[in-house]
């Protein structure tokens, strides 16, 4: 039988050794992990304008296609800034008038401009996020990408499949009168020819609702900017 003294010393030494080991491992691996997260973000942004890239070339592709990064205010004003480094989660916590939301402007090979809006919202078990891009009419969806932290595989997690995301292409966010209606995920399937609706995921209702909320809230923020931009485009 060991004495109490021995047990105490043993525990203390054990905990210290484990703590040091873990700190070293985490410090060594951190740059790799951060690079992974960065690359993933780049790949996600590119996917939202329907450009698939692998890990190696993504950095260069990003430089090639993304022409401008802007920070947008709710009233429609904007300034140049590093949109890439904005933490959407933190920005959404701020009061709506103080937010400066990121916007990426891309130019695809055919010379057309596309506007990429990052998204952040809540699913069933955790965060969901994504990127949605619009054509230069600032109404028609060009591409979309969604991802999630911990949605149920086979159910809510299906939002990260291309099959779900491709449904969004060519949907419109404004109705004929120019009011913002967003794109809805419709339970039981969107009626044929619905320009604002896509099919929800069966068994993934709460995640689908999360996608609805996320689109409405995030894209809604840019409506003023889109309207101003449309007006200037028309005058030109």
């Amino acid at each position: 039988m060991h004495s109490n003294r021995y047990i105490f010393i043993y525990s203390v030494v054990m905990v210290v050794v484990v703590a040091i080991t873990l700190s070293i491992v985490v410090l060594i691996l951190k740059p790799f992990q951060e690079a992974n997260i960065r690359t993933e973000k780049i790949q996600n942004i590119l996917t939202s304008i329907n450009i698939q890239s692998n890990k190696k070339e993504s950095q260069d592709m990003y430089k090639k296609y993304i022409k401008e990064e802007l920070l947008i205010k709710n009233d429609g004003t904007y300034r140049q800034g590093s949109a890439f480094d904005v933490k959407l989660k933190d920005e959404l916590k701020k009061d709506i008038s103080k937010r400066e939301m990121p916007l990426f402007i891309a130019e695809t090979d055919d010379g057309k401009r596309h506007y990429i809006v990052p998204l952040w919202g809540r699913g069933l078990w955790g965060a969901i996020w994504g990127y949605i891009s619009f054509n230069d009419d600032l109404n028609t969806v060009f591409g979309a990408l969604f991802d999630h932290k911990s949605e149920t595989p086979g159910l809510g997690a299906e939002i990260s499949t291309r099959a779900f995301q491709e449904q969004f292409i060519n949907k419109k966010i404004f109705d004929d009168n120019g009011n913002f209606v967003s794109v809805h995920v419709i339970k039981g399937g969107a009626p044929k020819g619905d320009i604002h609706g896509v099919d929800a995921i069966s068994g993934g209702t709460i995640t689908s609702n999360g996608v609805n909320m996320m689109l409405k809230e995030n894209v809604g923020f840019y409506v003023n900017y889109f309207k101003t931009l449309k007006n200037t485009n028309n005058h030109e």
Partner: protein
Amino acid sequence: MSKFSFLSGKIGKLFLAPFGDDNPITVKVLGICSALAVTVKIKPAFVMALSVTVVTAFSNLIISLLRNGIPSRIRIIVQLVVVALMVIIVDQFLKAFVYDVSKQLSVFVGLIITNCIIMGRLEAFALANKPFPSFIDGLGNGFGYGLILIVVAFFRELLGSGTIWGYSIIPASLYAKNNGFYVNNGLMILPPTALIIIGLIIWWQRSRRKNLIDIS
């Protein structure tokens, strides 16, 4: 067979037993929870199996090395700390080098800590045996667990998603949405199916190995 002669000795037995009559899942019924959770697709199941193998093998090794110094009154805590250490290291490695798979496995890597196989092997084997046999025992049990995981994942992925390791197996033209007749079995994606498949494996195994049948 000379190449595999090490498998016939005592060490070989330690390594091979968990594949058959000593299988952690089908015979000892340990580690069932993760077998339900990560077997929807083969790739995550494979990485999970590998992670568990690394954790069991090295925890067994470390505990066996320390076995004479561990105060018996806090031995479970010591085991837990060692297991947790290994799991965090594995998790950090996955995040750094196979980021996409680590995302799919999400919380389940962290939950390896609670996998009964690991604590079971530490208590039952590593505390009483020398480091090398303990390491082999851990490897064997990890692989035995992985074998069942991959078999289950194979059927679930094939029947539930029509793919193997992410590659489509069922021709697209057979699917109902392309005017064919075939529909993936949605039940296969849900956790209860894993239990049913494991049940079938246990049934098959016991019908062949009568010595496993518990008569009491």
